[in-house]
C-alpha cells in the first residue's frame, strides 16, 4: 500500500476515535504522555537538560559568554534561542539551516522565556554599556514524535534552572547559579475535527487542522501564544483551550520544575 493510502486510513481512524472521545494511545483528550526531565547531562555546557514527552526527545544546552549590549539596552543581557532539527530526529528533517518550522519554534520558545520574565536581564549586565552576558539557548531535537513545542520549552527552562554563570573562565569571580524568576510552561492543543486535544502526538499533529500553544507563568497569566496550521479556530474553542491550559501548566511546573 502506498504511503498516501496508509495516511488516509490513519486519518480516518484517528478521526473516528476522536468522535468517540478517544485517542489512539488511550489517553484522555487533556492527558499528556509520560514526561521525563533530566538535567546536568552536558559538562561542556553552562546548563543542560533532556526533556522527553512520550517518544519525543530534545536536549537543551545553555552556553554563556560575554558580549556587547544592544545600544538601546546598555544594562541588559541578551538571550539567543536557536532550535536545530537534527536530522537524527526524523526522516523528514534535512541537514541545513533552520527551516520555517524550526525558526517559529525557536522564536516561540524565546518569547516564552523572555516575556514571562523568567530571567531578569539586568542581572546579566557585567558593565553597563560595555559588557553583558549572552545566554545561548540551543535546542537540539533528537527524536520527533510530536509536540516539539512543549518539549523544547520545558527543556529550555529546565536547562536554565541548571545553569551557572561561568565567571571563573572569564576571570569574573566565582561561578554562581543563574537566577530564575518565573517558570513558564507551554501547553499545546490541537484541533481535530472540532475536538480539542492536548499534547498531540506526531500522528495527531499530522491531521490536526490547527495547533495552538499557550505559555503561562507562575501567576497563571498568559505570557505567550502561537497559533499555527491552516485551519481556523472559533472563539469558543479559543476560550475553551485557555481554560484548560492553566491547570495542566501548573501540574507540569510543580512536578518537573519546582522540585529541582
Amino acid at each position: 500500500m502506498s504511503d498516501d493510502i496508509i495516511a488516509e486510513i490513519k486519518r480516518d481512524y484517528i478521526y473516528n476515535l476522536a468522535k468517540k472521545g478517544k485517542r489512539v494511545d488511550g489517553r484522555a483528550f487533556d492527558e499528556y504522555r509520560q514526561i521525563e526531565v533530566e538535567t546536568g547531562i552536558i559538562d561542556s555546557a553552562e546548563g543542560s537538560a533532556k526533556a522527553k514527552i512520550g517518544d519525543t526527545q530534545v536536549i537543551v544546552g545553555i552556553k554563556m559568554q560575554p558580549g556587547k549590549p544592544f545600544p538601546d539596552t546598555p544594562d541588559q543581557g541578551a538571550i539567543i534561542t536557536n532550535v536545530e532539527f537534527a536530522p537524527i530526529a526524523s526522516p523528514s528533517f534535512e541537514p541545513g539551516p533552520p527551516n520555517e518550522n524550526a525558526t517559529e519554534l525557536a522564536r516561540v520558545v524565546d518569547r516564552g522565556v523572555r516575556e514571562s520574565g523568567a530571567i531578569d536581564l539586568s542581572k546579566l549586565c557585567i558593565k553597563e554599556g560595555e559588557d553583558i552576558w549572552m545566554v545561548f539557548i540551543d535546542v537540539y531535537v533528537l527524536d520527533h514524535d510530536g509536540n516539539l513545542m512543549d518539549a523544547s520549552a520545558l527543556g529550555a527552562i529546565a536547562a536554565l534552572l541548571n545553569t551557572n554563570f561561568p565567571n571563573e573562565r572569564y576571570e569574573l569571580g566565582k561561578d554562581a547559579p543563574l537566577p530564575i524568576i518565573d517558570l513558564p510552561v507551554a501547553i499545546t492543543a490541537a484541533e481535530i475535527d472540532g475536538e480539542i486535544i492536548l499534547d498531540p502526538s506526531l500522528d495527531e499533529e499530522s491531521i490536526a487542522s490547527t495547533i495552538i500553544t499557550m505559555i503561562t507563568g507562575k501567576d497563571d497569566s498568559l505570557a505567550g501564544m502561537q497559533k499555527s496550521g491552516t485551519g481556523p479556530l472559533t472563539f469558543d474553542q479559543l476560550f475553551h483551550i485557555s481554560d484548560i491550559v492553566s491547570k495542566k501548566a501548573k501540574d507540569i511546573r510543580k512536578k518537573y520544575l519546582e522540585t529541582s
Partner: protein
Amino acid sequence: MSNKPKKLIEKGKRLDGRKVDELRPIKIEVGILKRADGSCYMELGGSKVIAAVYGPRAVHPRHLQEATQVIIRYRYDMASFSVKERKRPGPDRRSIEISKVSREALEPVILKEYFPRSVIDIFVEILQADAGTRTVGINASSVALADAGIPMRGIVSSCAVGKVDGEVVLDLTGEEDNYGEADMPIAMTQEGKITLLQMDGNFTKEEFTRAIELAKKGCKEIYEIQRNALISKYEGVNNV
C-alpha cells in the same frame, strides 16, 4: 532610541490622541501595480505596505506541485529603509516566522482546490514600519488576492491588540509596542473564525477576554474599509 514617556495614556487618550479602542488612520489603494495580477497599497498610521499577488501560475520545479490543490507562498519583506537602523536586505528569522503565520492566516479562505498543480505567490513589502506591519500585510494581501480574482470564501481582516500602562488597547504604535506590556496580533474572517493568533507579553485571563473583544471590533472596522476599497475599484472599472 527615545526614552520611555512617563505616561502612554492620559485621561483615556493615547499620545497620538486616540481612544483606547480606536484604530490609527487607514489609507488604502487597490490595483496600483501594472505587472502584478493583484495589488494593494495600505497605510495604517506610520506603517506603509505594498502587497502584490501573482498567480495562479505554474510551479517550478515540478516536484513542488501538489496534485489536488494550489500552493500558497507568502513573503513578508522589510525594505532596508523601513526602519530607523538600516536593515540588511533579505529574510531574517523574524520575517520567516511572520511569512509563515501570515500565509496560514490567509489559506483558510482561499479555494485552493480550484487550481491544482499551481502556485499563488503573495509578496508583501514593508516600506515604512511603525508597529502592526504583519497585520497590515495580511489586510493588504487579502485585498490584493481579491483584486487578482482569486476565488475566496471571504476576506481576512487583521489588527493588533495590546496592553499599555495596564490598559488593553487597540492597534499599538511603535512606541506603545516598545514600552507596552503585551502585544497580540490577530486575524479573522468576517464570520469570526480566527486565522492568526500570536501573543507575547503578559495578559491576565480577564485582559485576554477584553483583548479578544477589542480585536473583533478592530477587524470589523478594517473589513468595512477593505470591502469599500474593493467596491470602489469595481465601480471605477465599470464607470470607465
